[in-house]
């Protein structure tokens, strides 16, 4: 292990790790807020709402994240006069903010599909039971359907966050100094392959800690089901 190299680039890579965490945490959180209305739109009675949300979800799940990031970051440059005129150019000029926007839209599409699947997996009898108890539709959804659906969605949501952590590395290609970006810089200056291995270790630690945290969260959220051994 090259200690001099570690002393020179280690701090920068740790800063990059923080940027990665920031990027993922913000986009996953905003994505989660957007996911519920999108999931509703996918199940809506209105045909055009279904069509628009279907197109949105299909586009973001069917194209590479890298292409989406290029589309937002470089593509916005084509409309620079327009963004200038509405005073939004400061946003699209920043690679970090463009990545944040792209990742948010991307993860919202994935999370919406996870939520939709989970909501549909709840037995119809639950709805009928709630109705016969005289619960209003919004009460039925908030107190009966959603809590059960979230338990089903928990594991796929955890996987989605892990995919986001891994996917966020493309930010480095559009000049964001996340963990990957800092590592590329260190490699370009030192030509020492070991910097990539350090980055690998950091990513693995990040993903593994999230996985453990998520297992604990799942145990806690399903503790009322532990006696019968029923697992969602």
């Amino acid at each position, binding site marked *: 292990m090259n200690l001099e190299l570690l002393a020179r680039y280690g701090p920068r890579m740790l800063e990059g790790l923080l940027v990665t965490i920031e990027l993922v945490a913000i986009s996953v959180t905003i994505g989660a807020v957007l996911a519920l209305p999108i999931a509703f739109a996918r199940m809506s009675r209105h045909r055009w709402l279904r069509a628009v949300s279907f197109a949105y979800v299909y586009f973001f799940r069917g*194209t590479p994240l890298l292409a989406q990031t290029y589309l937002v970051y470089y593509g916005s440059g084509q409309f620079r006069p327009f963004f200038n005129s509405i005073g939004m150019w400061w946003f699209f000029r920043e690679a970090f903010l463009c990545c944040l926007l792209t990742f948010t839209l991307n993860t919202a599409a994935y999370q919406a599909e996870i939520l939709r699947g989970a909501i549909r997996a709840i037995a119809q009898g639950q709805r009928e039971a709630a109705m016969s108890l005289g619960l209003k539709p919004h009460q039925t959804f908030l107190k009966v359907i959603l809590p059960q659906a979230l338990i089903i969605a928990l594991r796929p949501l955890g996987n989605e966050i892990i995919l986001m952590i891994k996917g966020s590395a493309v930010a480095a290609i559009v000049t964001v100094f996340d963990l990957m970006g800092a590592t590329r810089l260190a490699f370009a200056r030192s030509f020492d392959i070991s910097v990539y291995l350090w980055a690998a270790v950091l990513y693995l630690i990040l993903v593994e800690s999230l996985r453990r945290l998520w297992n604990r969260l799942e145990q806690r959220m399903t503790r009322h089901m532990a006696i019968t051994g029923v697992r969602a």
Partner: protein
Amino acid sequence: METLALFSFGPEGWGDELAGGTWLTVRLAAATLPFGLALGLLVAFARRSKWKALRISSNTFTTVFRGLPELLTIFIVYYGGQLLLQKLISTVSDAQVTLSSFVAGMVALGLVFSAYASEVFVGAFKNIPQGHYDAAYALGMRRIPTLYLVVLPQFVRLALPGVANLWLILLKDTALVSVIALSDLMRQTYVAVGATKQPFAFYLAACLIYLTMSIVSSFGITAIERWSERGDRH
């Protein structure tokens, strides 16, 4: 109209460049698939092995390649493989060698693919009931016929949805090889943007081409799935 002309074929337009890039993307994905499947099957066998060392190392393999960003795996294989190759060659001669980015991309994507595929395969094996092996044994079938007449058809049916999903992910992941200078669809689009200054139009076009590839794949997958379930109809 001017924008449309940019997508025409020939020396003026970029249509042929994009088509060439698409062809490379398809070739890369198609070359990665058999490699990834074969390696994934080996890893799946190793994970079900009697030997502890084999189980531990195969589990480590899947944890690592499922946890690393695909981009990082590509860089490590590309630069690390180059270094390794050079070292190996230098023991016999002092010729300069370069690892082709196609091979590096294929190996890197194949490693990631196989890590996920081994999960799918292990799951598929678990879902074939022991009773089927017993029944085949009771009918006096030998090991090899049991394997390809009883186990394989079910295995294909059980593993197919997972593998199909991985194929769609693989198609999208190929975009990442553009960073190691492979002229795939993403890279060619990048070049076209540099020359035409029409980033939005070209990246949107690239997205639509990826989308088309996904849709075409989905049709193929549905057909294969129907074929694999032909024995399962009631």
